[in-house]
């Protein structure tokens, strides 16, 4: 059962690199939707079929796979921005940093003692890697909407890590996490709409007037 989840997790890491390298906004959102879909399979795979995990998977799939990408697509269409993603430090350097971050998270998780049944699974390193990729997206992308995407990937990383503890975490908190994710993204979308109306661009360059 571990092998399948490991494969899925490796797929997630590949998607991470694809996200870091992609220059098209629409394809980015589709990749995130795919990643969300994969992740929503994990609870069922990791902990077998039980009412709790099934519910969690379906909610995750609905949210990450369908609701949020739809919301983002609507935001793009409304603010009819140029579809390019302008990275601050170029694609290749972001990719290099991405690999470095993934390697770092593997080393770091190596030092954390896992309980026997998790020892084989790649949950912790992949979680941390996705987290780092999300952070990198946040830091290195110019458009406000890509920062929202970065935040999404960041949340995915935490979600992966959460899989290890599904039986321990009561349902309500898991739902709370997802709910907050949704509300967060929703408010971000509204804000992006305001930013675009006010600044008629999604670039964060002119979002730097508040400084010392």
């Amino acid at each position: 059962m571990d092998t399948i989840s490991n494969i899925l997790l490796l797929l997630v890491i590949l998607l991470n690199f694809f996200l870091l390298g992609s220059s098209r906004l629409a394809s980015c959102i589709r990749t995130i939707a795919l990643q969300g879909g994969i992740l929503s399979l994990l609870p069922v795979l990791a902990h077998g079929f039980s009412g709790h995990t099934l519910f969690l998977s379906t909610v995750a799939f609905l949210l990450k796979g369908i609701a949020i990408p739809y919301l983002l697509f609507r935001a793009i269409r409304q603010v009819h921005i140029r579809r390019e993603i302008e990275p601050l430090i170029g694609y290749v350097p972001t990719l290099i940093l991405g690999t470095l971050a993934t390697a770092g998270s593997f080393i770091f998780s190596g030092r954390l003692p896992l309980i026997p049944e998790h020892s084989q699974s790649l949950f912790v390193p992949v979680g941390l890697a996705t987290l780092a990729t999300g952070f990198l997206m946040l830091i290195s992308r110019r458009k406000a909407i890509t920062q929202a995407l970065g935040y999404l990937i960041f949340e995915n990383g935490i979600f992966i890590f959460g899989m290890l503890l599904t039986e321990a975490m009561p349902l309500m908190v898991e739902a709370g996490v997802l709910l907050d994710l949704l509300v967060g993204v929703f408010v971000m979308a509204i804000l992006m709409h305001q930013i675009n109306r006010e600044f008629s661009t999604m670039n964060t360059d002119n979002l730097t007037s508040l400084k010392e």
Partner: protein
Amino acid sequence: MNFLFLSWLVLGLGACAAALPWRSARITALLGGGSAVLGCVSGLIAVGQGLVAERAATFSLPWSMPGGSFSLRLDGLSAFFLLPLFIVGLVGALYGTEYMQKEKACLHWSWYNLLLVSMAMVVTAANGLLFLFAWECMSLTSFFLVITEYNKSEVVAAGWIYLLATHLGAACLFAFFLSAGAFCGSLDFASFQHLNKLTGPVVSVLFLLLLAGFGSKAGIFPLHVWLPDAHPAAPSHVSALMSGVMVKTAIYGLLRMCSFFTASPVWWGGLLMAIGITGALFGIAMAAMQSDVKRSLAYSTVENVGIILLALGFWMQSRAAGQHVVAALALAGGLIHLLNHALFKSLLFLGAGSLMHGSDSRDLNRMGGLMCRMPVTGLMIVCGGMAISALPPFNGLVGEWFIYRALLESGAALSGLGGFFPVMLVGCLALVGGLVLIVMTRIIGIALTGVPRSPEAAEAHEAGWPMRSAMIVLALLCLAGGLLPIQLLRVAGRAAVLLDPESAQLFAGQVITPWWLGIMAFLLIGALLAAFSFNRWRQGRGTVAAASTWGCGFAFPSNRMTYSAESYSELAQSGMFCSCLTPKSKDGRTIGFFPIRRFFVFTAPDPVLEKFFKPLFQRLADYCRRCCRLQSGNLHIYLLYVFCTTILLLFWVGQR
């Protein structure tokens, strides 16, 4: 002790009553001033009891503050410092009822009463936290009093520098009290006795903190920069209270804390003396060049604080060296000069205030001939001038007499290098005495005598009875101090018993009694009366004609040709003072063929402030602004900060 509480109660009630918005300012003045006068009277009774009582009266109440306890202690030393507080407070309140009618100063009287209460609490506090509490309340209330006329920008600037200096000083006091409290276990002064078990550099660090903390409030030489701006900005009776009394509470603090370090190293006294004499010379030199009356008096406060510090430093040094007679003389000199200074400096500030009140201008060059228009104020200022220049019949001489004798005694006794310093100090003190004469003859000569230099001075009006009676009370006290120096010594003895028991016994003995000074003062007054009656007798027969002053043949003398304040001290300034003190003057020379309108502006700013503190703070502020580029404004950098902090903390935790 309960009279003290009565006075605080009255002052507190007066403060609240004066805070209410009454219809007319007169009611507020009556309420506030009246309660201040009553409070000071009951305070004086408490001081009387304190001075007479053998044992110190203590009172303590559990206070919910951690480490703090509301404990008070009225012993000889506190009573000695309360005496000038309540005298000047009472006189100031009387003076202020009339002085404050011109300005619409809201809440003035509540701040005044609260200032009196907090100063009295500072002097009687027996717990570190209570002391600091009262100390900062004193600074705050006096700050609000300084900025009474907050519509003037220079008054607000002066108030700001004052608040800044007191706060930095308080930071040093915090450090001292906290480390002392940490060492002695509790903040009560009773437990501070263990401080003398401390040895090594720690004690000196504590002493330097003490000196910086109390020095900044006392106006000691390098830390005096706020005093010449803050005291003149305040209303006159407040600047009298601040110069005469508040500066002394700082010296009280210094004395009280040093009394805990019995085995004090010798260099402490030397340091105090060095700071004292430089402060005296600097203060009086600057006082000679100020064209603003109150600013000149404020600088002379710096000078007098220098002299007091000189005396106390000399007491410390000779006590450490074991010469008890010299120590007794120096301590007596320091304490008596401190008390006398409170009296005559307040008299001069009140006099200057009524001069300003009458001719509504502060600049000496706008005054002149005010003696014939304001006879009583003029007489009071002359008495104050004589007292501050230590001229015989007044009390100024008693303090300086003791200091001189202490210096002479050790100058004559010691040989080799030891004797060199006291002798040099005698020379400097004599020079300072001469310069004080220049300053006072300048103020009296330019402001009171001669011809009025401006239309306002021409129709100056005399002050009302409250202001005059206030000044007369102070002048009589100064005269009484000069005529009965024994009483001054006895009062100082009550304080000295706590500071230095061995030399305090000598106070009662014949060795240092100033009995003869009193006799000589009486003799002098007798001689003056005799000469005056002889003059009246001889002049009685001839006729006294009035004519214009002999202009040495010049036909059209105008009042602008008389000596001005700057020209009076110009000879002394160019001949004697060092170059760093030279005042800035925009010269009025006419250039070119056709004479155009020229201005001659003469300012003597404080060199320590202009050349040291202002550039220092300027550079600090510029450096801080350069560092502010960290807040660069773009979100990516902020996120990078978060990311790096996480990584750093992970590494740090990893290492642990």
